[in-house]
């Protein structure tokens, strides 16, 4: 679906993002689910482009979607925009007003309380109600929001050596994640596990070095990870600070 930017007229849809950002993945996935062509521009978050700062002056973050020259920021807002602007193609939100309210509420809760790295397994276990996805038989808004980030689970379990969400205790969650990751559009969007692992290991090294350099205070100041705060699992030996830093837009 992505194409190389040509030197001619401005593309209809252009996405500014970062390859490791869960928020960016949400928009990429949604665009693919809706079969919308777009041009992608990778941002170096350590050296943000003038274009990004001009297009998102309020938050200066990715993702930013530009449609016919007008910028949109904040991933969940972008997702709802896609539904509003392309109502005929594979809706992300349900059609019933109450179900829409539920999807909006849980997206807000997920981003507010859980962080993008992982959602609470109990949330997913409790909310499935016998369906394959939150959106029913097909991936919907809440699946995109919670799913883009859940793949970090396996990565951080690998990097930290800590079992965060036990497959036996949370079978529905694991089944949902497996089905989510099996979707063609998701496979096209999620970076390879190797790349994610390398990124996570590098980040963890950096954070450990910073903590060692600044003393115990810095490690405490890094804050409790939303992963450990939100997941009802045996307490890990060392709180993985990496998941929060890795998944948050910087």
């Amino acid at each position, binding site marked *: 679906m992505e194409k190389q930017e040509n030197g001619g007229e401005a593309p209809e849809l252009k996405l500014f993002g970062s390859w490791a950002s869960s928020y960016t993945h949400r928009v990429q996935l949604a665009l693919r689910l809706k079969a919308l062509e777009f041009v992608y521009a990778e941002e170096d978050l350590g050296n943000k482009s003038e274009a990004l700062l001009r297009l998102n002056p*309020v938050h200066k973050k990715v993702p930013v979607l530009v*449609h016919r020259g*007008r910028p*949109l*920021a*904040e991933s969940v*807002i*972008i997702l*709802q*925009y896609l539904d*509003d*602007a392309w109502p005929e193609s594979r809706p992300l939100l349900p059609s019933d*007003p*109450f179900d*829409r*309210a539920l999807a*909006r*509420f849980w997206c*807000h*809760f997920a981003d507010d*309380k859980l962080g993008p790295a992982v959602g609470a397994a109990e949330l997913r276990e409790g909310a499935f109600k016998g369906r394959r996805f939150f959106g029913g038989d097909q991936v919907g808004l809440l699946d995109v929001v919670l799913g883009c980030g859940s793949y970090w689970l396996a990565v951080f379990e690998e990097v930290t050596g800590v079992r965060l969400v036990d497959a036996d205790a949370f079978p529905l969650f694991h089944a949902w994640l497996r089905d989510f990751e099996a979707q063609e559009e998701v496979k096209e969007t999620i970076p390879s596990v190797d790349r994610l692992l390398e990124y996570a290991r590098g980040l963890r090294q950096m954070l450990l070095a910073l903590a060692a350099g600044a003393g115990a205070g810095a490690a405490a100041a890094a804050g409790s990870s939303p992963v450990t705060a939100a997941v009802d699992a045996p307490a890990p030996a060392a709180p993985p600070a990496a998941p929060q830093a890795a998944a948050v837009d910087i």
Partner: protein
Amino acid sequence: MAAAAEEGEGVRLLGGRMSPFTMRARMALALRGVEYELVEEALHPRKSGRLLAANPAYGRIPVLLLPGGRAVCESAVIAQYVDDAWGGAGAGAAILPVDPYERAMHRFWTAYIDDKFWPALDAISLAPTPEARATATASTRAALKLLEEAFAARSNGGAFFSGGGGAASPGLLDVALGCFLPALWACESLNGLRLLDDDATPLLRAWSARLAATPAAMAVMPETEEVVAFTRFLQTKFGVAGSK
């Protein structure tokens, strides 16, 4: 499309008269002409079992209780739900704009108001030190400046954030920001500040008077003196030095 109320069981809103977020939900209900019962929740000394059962994720007001017992939480979600559920023929004016980009802009600025503007405004009166108060005031002014620009862009010469083209009715962004006007005026009064003024925020200043005069706002906004008294109560409760 309107949800039919069961006999004797209507729409209820768990909330508080002083709560800006409750006001936001109530203005949305008023705009769509929905009849409802306001159930005032006393949050102190403890929250009611009814509230905690209705909103287990956050345990906070407002909560819209529908006939049959389903609940909608979060004021911005409630406002959009009210717009969706009570639309259709004969309904009051729409709360969300029709144009997809405008809808996105209303949602974007509503999130900004909740994440950046309100915490700063709230922190002015409840700041523990003069320095903290000054910082909160500066943050609030900065947020209002951005919202002034947003008003210019979105209103398109019209009376409200909901745009021109004959739209004479408040929209989501109007109620999203408007619900904080009583708190803002009380803050100005308590702290001897001008937050909305003709130099920095002339458009918002004029808009605030227009919004306050709408039936939806007049139905729910308390008098500034009441909010001042309530803020003084909170200052005492949190051990904050009262404003002179």
